[in-house]
């Protein structure tokens, strides 16, 4: 068990990998400012062990934070059979992009699929709105 578990509000260091989702894509085409697109984008899929450590339930909101931003999204179980503690998945969206580093090594390619962030429970907080 890592140090984060002993804090009053447990936190876990996450590596977040983004992916495409057909239902989310369809919702974006219909209305990128709509509820369905937000519900299908502002989510993070965690390992059940991470749920336990964060002391949260499916559908609770969590905060994801790094030096590039902080977003509040809903936590969901990934459903993957292979355990993946500390590795989480998010559909690629403006929400995940709020956490993507601007460090590119001058190559012009951001690390969209390799995001480091700290996750904590954000029970009661609303999901981050899509705006600038």
């Amino acid at each position, binding site marked *: 068990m890592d140090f984060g578990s002993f804090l009053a509000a447990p936190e876990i260091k996450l*590596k977040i*990998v983004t*992916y*495409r*989702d*057909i*239902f989310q*894509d*369809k919702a974006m*085409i*219909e209305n*990128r*400012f709509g509820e369905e697109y937000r519900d299908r984008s502002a989510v993070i899929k965690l390992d059940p062990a991470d749920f336990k450590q964060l002391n949260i339930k499916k559908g609770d909101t969590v905060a994801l934070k790094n030096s*590039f*931003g902080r977003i509040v999204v809903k936590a969901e179980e*990934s459903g*993957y*059979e*292979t355990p*993946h503690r500390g*590795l989480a*998945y998010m559909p690629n*969206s*403006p929400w995940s*992009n*709020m956490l*993507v*580093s*601007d460090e*590119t090594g*001058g*190559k*012009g*390619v*951001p*690390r*969209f*699929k*390799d995001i480091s962030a700290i996750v904590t429970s954000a029970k009661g907080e609303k999901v981050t709105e*899509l*705006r*600038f």
Partner: protein
Amino acid sequence: MEKNYYVCTGCGLLCDDIEVESEKNIVNKVYTACRVGVAHMKEAKGEANFRVDNKPVDEATAIREAASILKNAKNPLIFGLGTSTDETQKLAIELARKTSATLDDTSSFCLGPLVEALIQDKVKTCTLDDVRNKADVIIFWGADPSDSHPRHLSKYSYFPRGSEKQRGWEEERTAIAIDIRKSHTAKICGNYFFQIPPEGDTEFIDALIAALSGKLPKTSYNYPPKKILELANILKGAKFGVIFAGLGLIYSLENLEPVFRLMKALNEKANFHLIPMVGHYNMRGFNENLFAETGYVNSVKFENGMVKHGPEYSVVESLKAKTVDAALIIGSDPLSSLPRSVSKNLLEIPVISMDPCETLTSKHAKVYINTAISGVESGGSATRMDGTKVNFKPVIETAHLSDEAILKKIMEAL
């Protein structure tokens, strides 16, 4: 009865077997298309609108303002064009030349290098029709077409009974997924799903190359050598193999050398092709059109009749370094699709957004021009993800001008 088929411009597959029922220029029903395609073709819109500083204006004012922004900029950025026709892209290249602009599309941060390798004949490729008719071993590497290109498996890569594959997926095709997670496509591949750790692709490629020549495959993450040897055996037996390379693979590589090594090794033992999983319907067209004009597929800067090229002229580096002083964004929403840490710099320069729909970028643009939906409300030509040229006509008539017509007007106003 002769059927009237349309092309869906919802993704890089450009499915050409779509039937539509429409009335009074509203699409009511879409047949054959996937979930994304139906949404795309039914994307309904109101009246054409033009805005300057978020206030409604007439067409002429919007065009005049857009031209004035481009005229006054020393180094405007022209970006987007992945969902524009060839005709629009060629005009945009001309406009970039005329305005000494930096020109780029999304391929600079996704599959551009791979498309460039195909244009330069560095990798063996084939068409999707070849895949449907001949392919016996199909690899989805860092790609999940079930979500990104929903009809890929049913129309081309796995389920069809192609002319030389009448016994279909049950007997004659092996689909393999190599990915870091069990995607929907990986589920279809069943026991042929090879799960590797994030960034583990280069090592897996080299282990696979070792296995192809009968050596013991080793990885630092201790992937079972027996499984890699089994995979190598399947690949060695391929009469017509194809790798569909997705962003999961490309983002985990430092450069494309491992892909070139693997293709060489595979073609020493078998017959393998590679097709990039291009997302936007005409990203490959942009790469081809720019290459024909300049010898580069993206990230260029026009200056005094010369063309400069390099990552410093990519959309990401240009915005990061703040080297561009205005932006014309065509059919793209960088405020949503780029890292906010980079795209926020767009808020400091005048932006012209040409888009069929309202986006974060259009909401923050100095000039917004609502364009026709390419492929639904306007026609043209494009390049499918496999390099095949596709022509399409509009499904319905519209009051909205196409991005091609708008660009012509801007160029006249310059």
